[in-house]
């Protein structure tokens, strides 16, 4: 009985809720975006949060077994759900798909034509958007595949980017993670073909394996010949230093640029890295104070 319960749970997909604005933008039952960026490590969550300070969540991904509070009022890094934000692919500003409704709404237009036009235009507008997913809750490895499948059932992206981490003890390679910041990529064959220019990020050394959500995303995309990239940071200390966060920011910018997105760039990157480093080091210090 316990085994079959575990089997059922492992295959259960997450519940995904969208806000009323975003849900009207679906085309063919899916949200079409240019990039789907999933931040799975604390460093990447903090970095993206400071880079793209979108305030209004477009949706939330929730696993059935995760405990819920009395009610979600405002998204918080402490919540045990994964919030999603839509951002303009070029500016990084919050995206407003409902603006299109307001521009084209008219009672004199035949509704069926209106809906068709709205859908086609909505699709065109969505392709200028990127969806950021903050997976701030540690996910059990055996839930990763169903989590990714659940998300990719309702979101269609031209490219998927997962920002993840690899513990130093799992790293097998020529470099020393305690001496320098190390970030590597794992790309599907389709992602390599899609990217317009080549980035300079080294590939994960042979012998190292990624697991969890990043691996599930790569696996899902590779088997279906879709484009996906995992950007992996090797974690050698409890809180990453500024050099590591800056490298993560720069590499994320490079990967996004090679796939035509520009919402992370310029001076904002360094500022975001500094803010993230300050947030994470104070959190690490506080936790040690109460041991």
């Amino acid at each position, binding site marked *: 009985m316990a085994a079959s319960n575990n089997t059922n749970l*492992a295959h259960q997909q997450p519940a995904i809720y969208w806000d009323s604005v975003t849900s009207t933008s679906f085309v063919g039952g899916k949200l079409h975006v240019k990039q789907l960026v999933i931040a799975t490590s604390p460093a990447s969550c903090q970095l993206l949060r400071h880079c793209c300070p979108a305030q209004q969540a477009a949706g939330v991904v929730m696993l059935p077994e995760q405990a819920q509070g009395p009610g979600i009022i405002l998204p918080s890094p402490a919540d045990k759900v994964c919030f999603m934000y839509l951002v303009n692919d070029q500016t990084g500003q919050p995206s407003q798909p409902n603006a299109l409704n307001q521009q084209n709404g008219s009672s004199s237009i035949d509704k069926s034509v209106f809906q068709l036009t709205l859908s086609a235009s909505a699709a065109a507008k969505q392709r200028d958007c990127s969806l950021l997913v903050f997976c701030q809750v540690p996910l059990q*490895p055996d839930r990763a595949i169903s989590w990714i499948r659940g998300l990719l059932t309702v979101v269609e992206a031209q490219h998927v980017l997962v920002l993840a981490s690899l513990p130093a003890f799992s790293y097998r390679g020529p470099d020393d993670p305690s001496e320098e910041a190390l970030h590597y990529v*794992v790309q599907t064959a389709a992602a390599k073909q899609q990217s317009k220019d080549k980035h300079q990020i080294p*590939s994960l050394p042979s012998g190292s*394996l990624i697991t969890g959500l990043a*691996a599930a995303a790569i696996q899902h995309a*590779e*088997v*279906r010949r879709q484009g996906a990239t995992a950007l992996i940071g090797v974690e050698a200390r409890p809180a990453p230093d500024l050099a590591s966060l800056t490298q993560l920011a720069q590499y994320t910018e490079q990967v996004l640029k090679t796939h035509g997105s520009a919402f992370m760039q310029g001076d904002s990157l360094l500022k975001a890295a500094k803010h993230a480093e300050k947030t994470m080091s104070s959190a690490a210090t506080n936790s040690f104070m109460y041991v």
Partner: protein
Amino acid sequence: MLVIDPQIAFVNDSHVGLQPGVTSANVGQLAIDLIISTLHLPCVGQLETSCLLPCAGIGAFDHLSQRVSLSLELFECPVAQGPPVFVLQQRAPAARGCQRKYAEELARWISEAVFAEVVLIASLDANLRQDRQIAGQQINYVSSGSAAAVCQELGWEQLEGGLMAALGQQQSLLPPWTLIEAFQHRSITYTCVLAFAAEGNNAPDAMRVADAVNQYLHLLIQQQPQPNGKHHASKGVMSLPPPWLAPLSWKYVYGPASSRGFY
């Protein structure tokens, strides 16, 4: 459900499957790595199932250095004489509570692909050996079909009925017993090659098992000795006695070399 890309059409029903069981010391997976690396087998398909934990890496082998490696991959081994052999490499264990379901999914796929025989490589904990088994041949077998005679000729010992029953009961939810049960349920002809091994540096155990599988399936043509007497090995990768070539992924298994500056 098992998803495979691309959909492979198995032309006839005489092909043989070779796969590892994920057991202690991982000898089956290591032996499969040696076979793929030495024979430069092409990857003909990648499989996905929600029953296995996901994992991904790059460049597991010299001849596939740019390719993404996943939890479950299928390679083809062209054999000069005899039926073609398809080699399945499994890199990740089953998820919690999914051992039996994974075994059933795999058995269903093998049954639909109409494999003539499946050779399963696994390892048993060396502590299970009896006194007389500590020295000598460490390869045992369990077989369903007429392969028993061939195994006996190769000098393998059949796993004792008592030990097999005890393990089948104590470890009924662990491979290779879940796979054997699933194969029996679908009447799939199988031969399970079992090696006693302790956790540690299991490269020698993997070579021993790869040698045994080679004797059984005749995968390798005898390597011609090099003029200087040395066997070709990938530069910097673990050096193994011929004919086996260690895959690229074994290069840093014990970490990078110590900095010379220490000395």
